[in-house]
């Protein structure tokens, strides 16, 4: 019996270790507008971003032909560099295209704002481009931590 006691004590520890090594399950990514609304309500943005027409957002990201039904773009009034793009793509190739174009968009914004409004550049330096499955998210926030708290639930 004495020999069994250490084993019995060790078992819960082993079970705990097994649980800890398994990554926490992330929630499924909600629909684009729902996720955008959650981000906008998080207090991560210095002004109320507005949802733009799909075709205008696609044009700005050069994603006119992207196979991504139900995407969502949010932009500022022009006063700040903050913006959101949530791109639920139909397939892996589209997701890769979306991710690439988000990268190009970010590069261009940094270039633009460096001369135009340098005070906005730190926000761009903390921009997030995340992907889960075929959904890609691009987010430039005033408070990156608050935005990340929301996105960490899903990505």
């Amino acid at each position: 019996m004495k020999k069994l006691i250490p084993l019995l004590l060790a078992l819960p520890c082993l079970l705990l270790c097994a649980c800890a090594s398994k990554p926490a399950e992330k929630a499924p990514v909600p629909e684009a507008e729902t996720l955008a609304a959650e981000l906008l309500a998080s207090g991560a943005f210095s002004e109320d971003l507005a949802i733009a027409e799909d075709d205008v957002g696609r044009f700005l990201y050069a994603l006119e032909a992207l196979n991504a039904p139900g995407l969502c773009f949010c932009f500022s009034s022009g006063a700040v560099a903050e913006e959101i793009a949530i791109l639920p793509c139909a397939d892996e190739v589209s997701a890769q295209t979306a991710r690439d174009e988000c990268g190009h968009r970010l590069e261009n914004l940094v270039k633009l704002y460096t001369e135009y409004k340098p005070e906005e550049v730190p926000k761009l330096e903390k921009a997030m481009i995340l992907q889960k499955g075929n959904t890609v998210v691009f987010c430039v926030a005033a408070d990156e931590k608050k935005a990340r708290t929301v996105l960490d639930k899903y990505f």
Partner: protein
Amino acid sequence: MLLVLCAVLCLWIGLGRDSAEAAEAEPTAPALTLRASGAMLPGGGEAQAEATPAPTPQPTPEPVPTPPGSGVFAPSARPDGNAVTPKDDLCYWGMELLDAGAQAHRCRFVSGSGSLLLDYDYGAAVPESEAVGTDWFSDAVFIGNSLAQGFMLYGGLKTADMFAVQSISVANIGTDHVINVGGGNYLTILDAMARKSYRKVFVMLGINELSWASKETFYTKYSNLIDKIRELEPEAELYLQSMTPVTARQSNNSTTFTNPRIHEYNEVIRQLAEDKEAHYVYVFDAFVDETGCLPAGSSDDGIHPYPKYYPQWLTYLETHTVMEVQR
């Protein structure tokens, strides 16, 4: 057929009476010189005509009764001498009447809704007229800065092409590669515009130039830009939009972005419109409150209106349209 008769009658009432006296001395109406399509006829129908040569006469023209007391514009014959043709030709004919009516009044300009702008000339702000539909902008391109981008994003105009980016000024609109065409490739705004032929070019620039030391530099560079746009878009009429106001708070706390300074630069834009024969569209009025400022609480930075205000801009443009009908 009834619709055709009604339209003819409306056209005749709208223009025939006013034009008769002048047309007596010149019985044949001049060739169509209207430079933009989509004008509203006096009878209310939207003309589909373009500035193209008159179509060949139909072999068996449909007779149209002559209204009593009609003058030179009796609808038994078109102003070009050809017989009146069926309905599909009527819009063209109406445009000729409109043009002839404008000439009878020695009027060089009509609004987009078809009214004669007797007192308007380059250098004056485009006057208010009956609203046009957004189709009027289907042959237009909008180019400009962050304010123009706000209009692109939130103005609600889907029929026009738009190339607008924050940071753009008269100095860099032709040099900075800012229009994303995919794959990490970018065009200048002028290059992006030049890929297509337009009949109307709307420009919104100036706010980023307020920090410049000299209005003369602004005038010179803007003037050069107008020449370049005309070179790239020779068929287009040019619409120079004024700058929009800033809030009183912004105006009082800044030495650069102030409403008095905006008025000074708007006067430069107006002068350019006069000197270069472009239309000056005073969109300042679309955003201004009774104190002469962008309303308090309508902007985060005091310069860029919140998205919900941009449709006011479109409403203003729809009710301040002009086209040149003769030179």
